[in-house]
């Protein structure tokens, strides 16, 4: 009985002393921090994607509170979120255009010439072996390096081709950095018309290896409402994102290789590669 009492007493005494030590230490070594940082962190999406260039949301929140960056620098947060943060901090939030990623290639396995590949299933490793197994030197290799890098699961590998889902993509740009072919670009989310080809080769050379390559026929350039809506660069045509064409261009132009697509249509898998 006495042993139990003594040990209880001892434990209680030890607890009291340690509590005192912790209490004093908490007061003495307290770190001053701006309480607004925590609140702003809570307001941010919390994806920790790093798309803003900071090491996670908390770091970004600190930068906002310090005034180093505006709250709309977060690519994930919606405009309302940014305004909410700005209101809380008593600053003004500017409008920022929402961007989404586009993989400039439409050559899936069924549309392109490929050689057998037996090695590490990662685009950045595969590209070291003969530039990837694809016949086209510029196209998507399809080993999902971008899909693995995407914090929002917005990239799907379909038929050996990376396809971005515009409704899921927030435009953080993580995928842009990992693509060894520099295929992925961030484009304004409001523009839906894109040319899904990246090869600067001559039309005939492209057609040899890919059914859905842009062959530079300029049908879309002629069909566009104004001349500079589509830009011509050698044998490759690209959307002019400063003066974008309307979505109906895809139907009007009737691209012979279907390289000209709507991002939504491409993501839904509505477009099949054709060879006319």
């Amino acid at each position, binding site marked *: 009985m006495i042993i139990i009492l003594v040990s209880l007493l001892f434990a209680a005494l030890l607890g009291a002393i340690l509590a005192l030590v912790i209490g004093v230490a908490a007061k003495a070594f307290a770190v001053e921090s701006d309480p607004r940082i925590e609140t702003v962190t809570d307001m941010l999406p919390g994806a920790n994607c790093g798309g803003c260039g900071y090491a996670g949301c908390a770091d970004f929140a600190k930068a906002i509170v310090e005034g180093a960056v505006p709250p709309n620098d977060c690519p994930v947060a919606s405009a309302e979120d940014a305004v909410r943060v700005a209101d809380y901090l008593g600053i003004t939030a500017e409008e920022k255009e929402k961007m989404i990623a586009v993989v400039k290639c439409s050559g899936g396995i069924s549309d392109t010439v490929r050689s057998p590949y*037996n090695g*590490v299933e990662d685009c950045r490793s595969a590209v070291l072996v*003969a*530039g990837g197994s694809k016949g086209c*030197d510029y196209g998507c290799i399809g080993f999902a390096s971008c899909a693995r890098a995407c914090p929002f699961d917005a990239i799907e590998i379909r038929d050996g081709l990376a396809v971005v889902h515009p409704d899921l993509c927030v435009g953080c740009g993580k995928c842009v950095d990992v693509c060894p072919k520099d295929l992925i670009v961030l484009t304004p989310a409001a523009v839906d018309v894109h040319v899904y080809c990246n090869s600067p*080769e001559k039309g005939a*050379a492209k057609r040899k290896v890919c059914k859905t390559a842009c062959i530079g026929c300029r049908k879309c350039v002629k069909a566009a409402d104004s001349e500079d809506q589509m830009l011509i660069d050698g044998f490759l045509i690209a959307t002019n994102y400063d003066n974008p064409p309307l979505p109906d261009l895809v139907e009007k132009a009737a691209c012979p290789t279907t390289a000209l697509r709507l991002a939504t249509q491409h993501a839904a898998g509505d477009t099949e590669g054709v060879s006319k």
Partner: protein
Amino acid sequence: MIKKITKRKKVISHKTSIIEETIEISPSTSEKIKDGVPASAPEKSNISVISRGKPRKFKGGVHPNDSKALSAASPVQDAPLLDKYRVIVHQNIGAPPEVLVKKGDEVKKGALLAKASGFVSASLHAPTSGTVTAIDKCDGPTGIRVAAIEITADGEDEWGSPFEPIADWQNAEAADLKQRVSDAGVVGMGGAGFPSHVKLSPPPAKPIDTLILNGAECEPYLTADHRLMLEQAEEVVAGAAIFARILGLKSAVIGVENNKPDAIEALKKASAKTNVTVQGLAVNYPQGAEKQLIYALTGREVPIGGLPMDVGCVVQNVASAAAVNDAVVKGHPSIERITTVTGEPLVNPGNWRFRLGTPISKSIELAGGVKYQPAKLLLGGPMMGFAQSSLDVTVMKNTSGILLIPAEQVSQYTSDPCIRCGKCVSCCPMGILPATISQAVENERFDMAAQLNVLACIECGSCSYICPSHRPLNQHFKRAKSEIMAARKKEQKK
């Protein structure tokens, strides 16, 4: 106890014994070459270092089935003249040469097509006389389309070499000879394609005392260097002497693997009256890798990230030596090379002397075509060669072999987890830890890979070859090396 130890020693010495012979230098020739040699050059050949004898081979290595018998007995034949050659512009490590010709130009055989665009660059010459019909992109050996000059032959095959032979090269200035090596566009023909003249220009702070000619040809299947050493032994030896003269050395050593006794014999015969020494080497892949060859011959270890010149050595390929001999003695630039066309599916595997720009498809035709469909086509040997997806790729200065592999030898496997057997560690000729590094790379820890000296990897493929889990170790290291180099470049830019 003492008895036991001596017995063991014996076994070791037996195991590592290799053919060695130092050729007596006849007074007349040694006198001749002595002229113009700086006093600091060692009196005796460095072979004394070698024959003292401990390190006969490097540590590690593997023994793949060499399959050289397919083509080793076939003498080198001159490939017939083609109608068209497509010469790839960038055939060397370093800067691509600057193209001088344009479409429609008439060129003579040996005429300058592209001029070296810097110090580490190599000039390119026309393989035959004819017209430049296109300067366009064609399929390259690494799978990426590269710039190439198409020459339509006129059938005359008339020489128009940009330089004259240096008949009395024994008394020529070293600088003139070096300029000739550079003008002739000679590169390392063993596979790397490193411009030869760069290796012959060591900075004054790094004195060279040993010239090594690489005739190891450790890659399985390849016999191009073997046939060259056998049939053109004198030219190889003369090339060695020219290299020695440029470097101000009096001697040179040719390292040949012991599986080519006839080549060793021929070289010894050819070098009998010179101070070029022929040294047999243990048969062990990658014996022909520069650093491993230096270690086997001199016992010196090239430091990590260093060059052979850091340990006073210069290593040149035997085919490059023959090319330099052509450039100096005959006044011919480097426009052809001996290439082994081999593999079980071929009807007549053999060795041919191809002009640069000969398509692979033609070489396969020359070898009698295929008996059955091969599964893989490689440029180079099976260990380090590049898989090809096009038959339009053309022969370059560093194309040592064109190899067709049947389906039963191409295994399609998936890589399994590392079982930590340590085989890769014991076979790695550079003494790094492939298993540990590959795990770091799989987790994208390139900093850790760099710390584990992945940059020392020579990509010989021994670890991938021996791994029982079929792990793509070599590919992991390639990735790590490219990532680390890219990161360093970025840092430098900052």
